[in-house]
């Protein structure tokens, strides 16, 4: 499993180009083509009350995007990677998903490139919707973030994001897929931290012997994951913790200086997510690190 073709949607916000540059590192992992995409929100140009459609405005936005992309394409070509431009009109998230399907991409890049105001979450509603609905892996990139740690306000630039990924696994099928994806990071990753959290829901009410059994079993599984990565030529180390899953993943990633978090996601719909919650989506919101979600 490789990232040969990626979709890079943008709204041309500040630092978007820097974010793109950081992604081009994937060339070492087999990246061949980048599809640069700009979705003109339909509501920006269509349904002018009692008017109609602002064709001129659409043309202006298209032209503006095309010129910007031309510049970006030069940088991509300089890296020896092919590129393509898609400028479409529509509802952003469904349109992006449709373009991703049509282009048969292996990865979608999403998320804010910069967050300057201190906030509790690092992703917007569009990104969350994309993450929830995509059947293709999504990398929530978060190029520049500001967060509070031990009373200090820290600005972090996530540029070399593939050097020390933390693979958080719950042994599910998407986690298996995530492991296979991380295997393609050879040449990019110095080491992979394979992490499992024994969740509160699981450990609650269990006697010590049962807990020991789960711990032993988890360690064995972690070792197996690490062995598989090592076999592919990637240095890997196991980490086992217990507690509230999302909270622990964010903490461990921060403390072990991970460069990104990789997780499987079961893709709960809005209703299920509201009632059951989703660890991967909570990590995506709460972590200052880029998060790669593998459905």
């Amino acid at each position: 499993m490789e990232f040969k073709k990626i979709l890079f949607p943008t709204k041309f916000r500040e630092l978007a180009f820097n974010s793109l540059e950081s992604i081009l590192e994937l060339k070492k992992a087999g990246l061949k083509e980048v599809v640069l995409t700009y979705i003109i929100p339909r509501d920006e140009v269509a349904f002018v009350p009692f008017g109609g459609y602002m064709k001129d405005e659409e043309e202006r936005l298209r032209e503006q995007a095309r010129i910007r992309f031309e510049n970006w394409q030069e940088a991509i070509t300089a890296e020896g990677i092919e590129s393509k431009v898609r400028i479409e009109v529509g509802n952003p998230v469904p349109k992006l998903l449709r373009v991703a399907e049509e282009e048969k991409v292996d990865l979608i890049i999403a998320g804010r490139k910069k967050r300057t105001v201190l906030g509790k979450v690092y992703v917007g509603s569009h990104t969350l919707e994309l993450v929830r609905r995509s059947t293709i892996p999504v990398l929530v990139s978060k190029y520049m973030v500001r967060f509070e740690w031990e009373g200090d306000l820290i600005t972090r630039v996530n540029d070399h994001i593939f050097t020390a990924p933390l693979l958080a696994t719950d042994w599910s099928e998407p986690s298996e897929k995530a492991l296979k994806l991380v295997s393609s990071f050879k040449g990019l990753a110095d080491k992979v931290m394979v992490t499992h959290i024994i969740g509160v829901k699981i450990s609650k009410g269990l006697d010590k012997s049962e807990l020991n059994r789960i711990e032993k079993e988890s360690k064995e599984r972690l070792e197996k994951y690490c062995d598989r990565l090592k076999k592919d030529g990637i240095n890997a180390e196991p980490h086992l913790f217990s507690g509230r899953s999302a909270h622990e993943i964010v903490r461990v990633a921060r403390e072990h200086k991970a460069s990104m978090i990789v997780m499987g996601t079961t893709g709960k719909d809005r209703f299920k997510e509201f009632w059951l919650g989703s660890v991967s989506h909570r990590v995506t919101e709460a972590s200052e690190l880029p998060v790669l979600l593998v459905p």
Partner: protein
Amino acid sequence: MRLGKWLAIIFLLSIFAFLVPAMATDQEVAATHDTEHGSTHGAEHAVAETGHEDVHAGSESHGHGDAGHGGHGGHINLGEVLKLWTCIPFACMLLSIALFPLLAPKFWHHHFGKVSAFWAACLGIPFLIAFKGVAVHEILHIILADYVPFIILLWALYTISGGILLKGTLRGTPIVNTIIILIGTVLASWMGTTGAAMLLIRPFLKANNYRKNRTFMVVFFIFLVANVGGSLTPLGDPPLFLGFLHGVDFFWTMKIMPHMLVTAGILLTIYFFLDTYHYKKEGLTSAPVEEGEKEPLKLVGTHNFIFLGGVVGAVLTSGIVDWGEVNTLGIHRAVQDWARDGFLILMGMLSLWTTSKRLREDNDFSWFPIVEVAYLFIGIFITMVPCLLILKAGLKGEMAFLIAAVKEPMHYFWVTGALSGFLDNAPTYLTFFNTALGAFYPGMPEAQAVPLLMTESSIFLKAISAGAVFFGAFSYIGNAPNFMVRSIAEEGGTPMPSFFGYILKYSLVFLFPTFVVVTLIFF
């Protein structure tokens, strides 16, 4: 001078303009009371809740089960004292809708809500200062009795029809196109012109994407599906629903069937020949080669027809049953009207819950158009309050000249129509509906006057209804679905004529003669 300063000046002028005559009205009222009751009461002592105002609103609009309190002898009727210029904010609101999309579309697209709020404030604030309780009552009345049900119905029809998707491969031959337009024309009366237009416009465009000249097709689609087709029931077109809210029977509107059949018949026949001509001219006498696999026609989300049935049933029931009244913020509304509104919301919610998001996305469903209509129409409804009151006052109001001039059914048809073509047809309908009430039954409560208008003066109501609905097609701004269809067509790459191009090349050429024929036959 900056725009903000101009707006502030307009706003202050409107307050000033209202306050001076209001003081005069106070004196007039005081004199009336001195004479009749030996006591002095100003307009500000009006008690809106009871309807026993010193300055009252005249024949209040009360439709199905809504109690009327018109005609208190010896009291000043607000419609008789209001000056003609109090209609200026209404005129400005409608002119904004007509001119901004032409002159400053980008500004309008982003600030239409503020423009609507501005004109509503220009009328509403001074009106409230000048006439206090009565003004509160009038504004609340038009919001609760007209605006709220109006928007709820539009929202429900828009939401439900947005959950139905026509999939599959169609080839736009003259026969197929004529059948699509015919189906849309029939559906429009039952799912609203907006609903029918939104359901069929994308398949219609897709079916004809291989055709060179598609512009005339979309224009005739606007004529028939987005306008003429909606003339048979109150669900079809917003003006007719406003009539229903004011007491016109659900099935009375069927009386416009002959007018509709003649209009639709003429336009469809012209369309067929026009399409055949272009089809042959484009050298498309044989079916074009299919690209890719042919997808069979399929209607998805058909369970939404159940909800449409629910909407029809709810509106129909609210016009038949009488469950008493309920006082909401001093406004008397029939229980069945509230129940209907609640049921329509339920139908819309059920449609949202039971229809897949993907289907709506395939339909390119967006809330934006309905939000626009909601923002604009709150401005329209508030600013039109004085206009309606003056018209209801009949020959005693400042629009006596209009009432005196508009006498014959053909006058009502053409004047309602001409204004509907260039202003939105819903407020225009209500204006001339009230003109007719003022002309034939001045001072009579609406609950009594409307049944008479439906029976002994029915030709006038037919003329107003047909004029409002048919002429809605005359320009892009005549009816809300027109601009939605135009927007979708242009987005899909079908060139559409300009505002004036539409009128000169199509409306004057095809609609005008058709309406002359309708006039000669029926009015």
